[in-house]
C-alpha cells in the first residue's frame, strides 16, 4: 500500500490503463504539455507522446464529439473537460449521441469512453467554474455517472470506467484532489454501481458524495459525542444507484439525511429521497431531509461561497433536529 493524493491516484490509473491497453488515449484542453489544469495528466505526454495525449482546441463539443467518434471506431478515449460547468457545451454529443448509440444501433455499437470533469466549490472560482451539475447527467439513460471521494475509490473506479463499454462521466471533486489516502500497489478495480459504507452507525444514515462525504464523517464524529450514531454512505456511482445498500441502511437506522453540494431543486437528493420513501416508507421514523446547496449561483467571494453550500455545523444541526 502506498500513501498518495487523489490526484496522484487518478494519474496512476490513467498511466496503468494506457500501459495495459494501447487503445486508451487522453484528450482535452491543456492535458498534454501542461499536464492538466489540476495536474491529473501530469507526465503522461512525456511517457506516451502527442499521439496518445492530445491537446485540443477550446471546444468542449469537439472534445466530446471526437471521443464519441473514436470510441465507436474501436478506441477507448478518456476526455477531460476542464470544469463540469463547460459540459453544457458537450451535452448534445453526450446526451444525444454517446448515450443513445448502443440502443439505436441495436447493440451493434458500443461507446467505451470516459469524460472526466472536475466539479464543486471551494476554490473561489465563481459561478461558471464551481457548480455541481451531476443531476443533469444522472438523468440520462445510457450514461454512467461516477463520483469518487477517496484516492482508493478514485483509482479503482477510473480503471473500471475506462474498461466499461458504455460512456461514463467521471466527476472529480476539486477539493478532494489533495486528499491523501492508501492505495494498493497492485492492479485493482472497484465495480461501478456499488456504494460504500464509509462509517457504520445505528441512528441515522448520511448519504453524501465527493467532499460532502468528508464533511459528513466529521459531522458524524461530533454527533457521536451527543449520542447520535451516524452511518455514512457514499454511493460512489450516481447512475446506476446502489439502492440495495442505501435501503438496507435506512431500514436499520430509520432516518435519512442527504448531504450534497448541488443545488437543492431537482438535485441528486430528490432522486434519493423519492426512491427511498417509495421503497422503505414503513421504516422511516423521520422525514428524509436534504442538506443541500442553496438555489443560487455560486458566489466568487470565498466567505459567501462557503455559506451557500453545507457546512459540518449545518449537518450536525439539521441531523440533531431529526430526533
Amino acid at each position, binding site marked *: 500500500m502506498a500513501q498518495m493524493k487523489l490526484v496522484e491516484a487518478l494519474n496512476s490509473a490513467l498511466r496503468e490503463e494506457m500501459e495495459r491497453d494501447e487503445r486508451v488515449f487522453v484528450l482535452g484542453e491543456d492535458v498534454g504539455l501542461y499536464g492538466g489544469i489540476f495536474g491529473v495528466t501530469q507526465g503522461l505526454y512525456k511517457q506516451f507522446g502527442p499521439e496518445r495525449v492530445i491537446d485540443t482546441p477550446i471546444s468542449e463539443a469537439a472534445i466530446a464529439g471526437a471521443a464519441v467518434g473514436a470510441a465507436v471506431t474501436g478506441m477507448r478515449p478518456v476526455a477531460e473537460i476542464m470544469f463540469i460547468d463547460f459540459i453544457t457545451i458537450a451535452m448534445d454529443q453526450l446526451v444525444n449521441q454517446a448515450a443513445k448509440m448502443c440502443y439505436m444501433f441495436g447493440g451493434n455499437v458500443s461507446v467505451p469512453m470516459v469524460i472526466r470533469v472536475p466539479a464543486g466549490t471551494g476554490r473561489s472560482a465563481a459561478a461558471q467554474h464551481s457548480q455541481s451539475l451531476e443531476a443533469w447527467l444522472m438523468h440520462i439513460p445510457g450514461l454512467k455517472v461516477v463520483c469518487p471521494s477517496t484516492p482508493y475509490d478514485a483509482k479503482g473506479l477510473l480503471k473500471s470506467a475506462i474498461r466499461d463499454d458504455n460512456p461514463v462521466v467521471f466527476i472529480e471533486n476539486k477539493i478532494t484532489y489533495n486528499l491523501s489516502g492508501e492505495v494498493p500497489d497492485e492492479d485493482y478495480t472497484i465495480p461501478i454501481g456499488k456504494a460504500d459504507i464509509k462509517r457504520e452507525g445505528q441512528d441515522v444514515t448520511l448519504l453524501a458524495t465527493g467532499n460532502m462525504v468528508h464533511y459528513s464523517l466529521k459531522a458524524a464524529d461530533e454527533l457521536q459525542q451527543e449520542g447520535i450514531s451516524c452511518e455514512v454512505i457514499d454511493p460512489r456511482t450516481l447512475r446506476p444507484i446502489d439502492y440495495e445498500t442505501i435501503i438496507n441502511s435506512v431500514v436499520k437506522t*430509520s432516518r435519512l439525511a442527504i448531504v450534497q453540494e448541488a443545488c437543492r431543486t431537482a438535485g441528486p437528493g430528490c432522486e434519493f429521497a423519492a426512491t427511498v420513501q417509495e421503497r422503505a416508507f414503513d421504516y*422511516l421514523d*423521520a422525514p428524509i431531509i436534504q442538506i443541500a446547496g442553496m438555489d443560487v449561483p455560486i458566489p466568487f467571494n470565498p466567505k459567501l461561497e462557503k455559506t451557500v453550500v453545507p457546512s459540518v455545523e449545518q449537518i450536525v444541526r439539521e441531523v440533531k433536529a431529526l430526533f
Partner: protein
Amino acid sequence: MATEVVMPKLGLTMTEGTINKWLKQVGEEVKKGEPLLEVSTDKVVTEVEAPAPGVLAKIIVPEGETVEVAKVIGIITALGEELPDILAPETETKSEPKAPKIQEFERTMIQAPPAKERIKASPKAKKLAREKGLDLSQIKGTGPGGRIVARDVENFTPPATGPLPPVTAGDESVELQGMRKVIAERMSKSFSEKPHVTLNSRVDVSALQKLRNKINEHLESKGIKVTFNDLLLKVTAAALAHHRDLNAIVEGNRLVKRGAVNLGLAVALDDGLVVPVIKNADRLPLADIASLTKELIEKARAGRLKPDELQGGTFTLTNLGMYGIENFTPIINPPEVAILGVGQILKVPVVEGEEIAIKPMMYLSLSFDHRVIDGAQAAVFLKTLKELIEEPRLIWLL
C-alpha cells in the same frame, strides 16, 4: 381602555379550564373584583373576578367551552367606551366597506375553530403501532414537533384493561374524564408505586363519645356543634404532631417530614371524591376544626373548593362508618405516606377483666407506604391514637 379577561391559572398544574357560566351579560356593568364568571377545572369550580371596572363588552369564549390558560375569553371596556375595531362583533365588521379589514377578520376566523388535530406519527411508528395493535391516539409523541416516533410506540405500555370490551344494548360506556380521570391516575399510581400495608386496630370510643356530648353541651349557646369526626381529626392531628414519620410526603427519592400537620378529609361526592385539607390541624382549637370542616364539606359538595383548599395535605382521614363498613384497606393519597380509614361504631361484647361488657367499638385501619415506614413505626402511631381515643385526657401529655 379595553381590558382583556383571560382564563386564569388557578393552580400549578392547571393548563386549561372550562367556562361554566358567565355571571354577567354582554353590556352589563361590572365592578372591579365582582364575580364575573365561573370556571371549572378537573378539581373545582371557581368564581373569577372582573379584572377592571366597566362594561362586559364582549364574550369571546361561550359557556361550556374549554380553553387554555391565559387565553382571552372576554373584554371589559370602560363606561362609554367603544369596543376597538378589531374586537367588534361580527355584524359590524361585515358592514365595514374597507376591504383589508374584512380580510384581517376572515384570517382570524380561519384560525378560530379548534379543528380536530390529526395525529402526527412517523411511518415507522404507525407500522409498529399497527403490528402491536396499539391506538396512536393513546401515545404521546416525543419526536420533533411532538411527532410520535418509533421509540414512543416501543416504550408505550397500554393500559392493563386491554382492548375496549364490546358494548351491547343496556351497557353504558363512559370515557374517564375530568375528576374521574385524575382519581384514576392518582389511585393507580399510588397503588402501583407504593407497597401498601394496612394495620387494623379496634378501639373503644365510649370516652370520646362522652367527651363530645360534654363539649356540645358547653358549646350549645355559641351555636357550634362538634361531631365525633371532628374529635377524631383533633386527636389524629395531635398524634401526628408526635409521629412526624407518618406526617410526610415522598416524591421520587426524597422523603419530606412536614412541620405542619395538614389533615386531608376524604369527602364523597355524587360523581367522585375530593380531599379538602385542614391546614395546621394540630394547632387549631377544636371549635375551629369543627367550623372549618363543616365549611369545607359544604364547599366540596357544591364543587366550590378553591385549588388552595385541596393542596398541601400531609395525611388523610377517610371514614366509611356511615355505610356500615367495619374495616377496610384505604389507598394512600399520594404523595402522602399514610392514610387512616375509620369504620362503623358498633356496640359489641368485650371482655374486660373477667367480665363481658357491651361497648361501642370502632376499627381504625391505617395504610402506610412500606418503602419509607416500617411496620413497628406505624404500629406505634396507631397505639398512640388508640390511647388518645380511649383516654382523651392524655392529649395533655402530648
